[in-house]
């Protein structure tokens, strides 16, 4: 796993020469550029936040800054759009997917890392091709299969779908990580009389915690943000997941109740951004490890 991925901690080492060579004027203008670009990028988020606290009339007041303050928008949006159900379903689907993906990928990654043969290597590469399959391309047979299995309109069908798309990346990441664990460690456990499964469970698995955190984070984000699978596999948007529910709210209420739509959007944004920012170190590690290994 690449150590390059870690977000740098505030630098305690002396600055590299290249940057010290920039004059004060150059540094000041680059600072300004940083702030300007950053501010422009944040506009959609800030604007939505500013709409979410306005009264209905203030939204259409042609004013750029809010002239009203109404926190009740969040309560109204929660009740009117049934956000409680949508949140609950998103949480269930996400937890289910994280559990299935992590369990399947960590066992398989261990197998692919420790028992290498032409056959296992070919299977591994085949599963990796799953990385490039656009979900829309297989949604039809997937929908038919779920209907035939009697799983249509169940959260389980979404869990299965999200898991299968999260699997290749998790496998790639975990196998790369397992390769860095010395074989001697598990071999020693075998010599001491542990079964292959025990060696995996009690020796390898505890060492894999950071990589498992990365895998869990990636499947959390991709599932929480997933849209096509719940859109197709669940038949009622008001009892679907948050993304599908919000898209319906946006098309039905977007023009009329901009402040409530914005409040709903803000409520949906907060939890995922909290997780995302809090776990950014794992995200960046996974990103660079995945990109380097592919």
């Amino acid at each position, binding site marked *: 796993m690449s150590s*390059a991925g870690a977000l740098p901690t505030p630098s305690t080492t002396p600055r*590299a020469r290249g940057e010290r060579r920039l004059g004060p004027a150059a540094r000041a203008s680059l600072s300004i550029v940083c702030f300007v670009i950053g501010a422009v990028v944040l506009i959609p988020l800030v604007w939505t936040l500013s709409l979410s606290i306005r009264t209905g009339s203030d939204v259409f007041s*042609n004013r750029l800054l809010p002239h009203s303050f109404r926190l009740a928008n969040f309560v109204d949006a929660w009740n009117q759009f049934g956000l409680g159900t949508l949140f609950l379903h998103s949480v269930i689907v996400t937890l289910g997917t994280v559990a299935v993906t992590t369990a399947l990928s960590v066992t398989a990654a261990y197998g692919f890392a420790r028992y290498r043969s032409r056959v296992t290597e070919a299977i591994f590469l085949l599963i990796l091709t799953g990385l490039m399959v*656009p979900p829309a391309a297989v949604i*039809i047979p997937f929908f038919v299969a779920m209907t035939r299995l009697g799983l249509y309109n169940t959260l389980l069908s979404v869990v299965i779908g999200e898991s299968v798309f999260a699997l290749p990346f998790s496998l790639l990441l975990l196998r790369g990580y397992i390769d860095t664990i010395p074989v001697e460690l598990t071999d020693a456990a075998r010599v001491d009389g542990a079964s292959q499964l025990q060696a995996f469970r009690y020796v390898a698995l505890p060492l894999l915690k950071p990589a498992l955190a990365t895998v869990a984070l990636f499947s959390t984000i991709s599932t929480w943000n997933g*849209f096509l699978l719940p859109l197709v596999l669940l038949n009622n948007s008001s009892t679907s997941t948050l993304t599908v529910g919000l898209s319906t709210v946006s098309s039905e209420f977007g023009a009329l109740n901009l402040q409530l739509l914005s409040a709903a959007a803000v409520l949906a944004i907060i939890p*995922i951004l909290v997780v995302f920012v809090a776990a950014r170190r794992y995200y960046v590690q996974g990103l660079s490890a995945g*990109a380097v290994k*592919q």
Partner: protein
Amino acid sequence: MFIAPATAFFAFFLLFPVLAVILLAFTNWTGFNLSQIGWGGVGNFKMLAHDAVLTQALIHTVIFVAVTTVALNLVGLPVALLINTKVVGHDFLRIAMFLPLGLSPVLTAILWQEVLGPYGLINELVVHTLHLTSTPIGFLGNPHLALITVLLASVWQYTGYNMLLYYAGLQSLPKERLEAAAIDGAGALRRLRYVTLPYLRPVIAVVVVLNLIGGWKVFDLIYVLTGGGPNHSTEVLSTYLYEQAFTLNRVGYASSIAVAIIALATVSALMRGRLAGEAT
């Protein structure tokens, strides 16, 4: 023993659907009733060739993939270099770039609707504050502008991805080389041109392919932001496939669109080997 569960899961729920959709593309199946499947030969592919909307969707998809790939790199790499200078404010920029990555494309679409819609921020500014025009600009309603809006929203969401990958690449840049170049009298721009960029070439090759592969997957953002409209002006292969399959129930025909998507994604993935080969 360890690999069996994941392999079976993958085979049943991904490999099998890929093969099934290829078979379905040769049927004239309409509706989702299994008793009504009939062999259609290459009929669907002949229809694809004469479908004007499909041609548009194909062109828009290629434009989407090409423009986002180019734009993400043209913005992402300079931003990564900017952050790597560690000037005051680089942390602010990095966080600002990073946040959109965590959002669902659905939320991205909603945010941009609120900024660019008829009552959005930009139209408030242009119509009521600056009085530049009396009618709102149809960023989403004007067929000539809608695709640009979609591209903008997508680049907004994913620039942080490229920034992070390039930034990670820059951390492993050997400092001695930069110092040697500096001692030899190379200015900041020359060091960038002759040391940093050549060093990043393999990273650029990987990132470009990741962007290409990601581009073919677009669906959510366009489906929510414009629904493929107005008048198919932002229709891409995936939104057209969805409409054909789940609105019009033309399952066989939609499957042939799926085969086209898989073929295009495969070509991009094969390019990876060539790009990486050139770079090393």
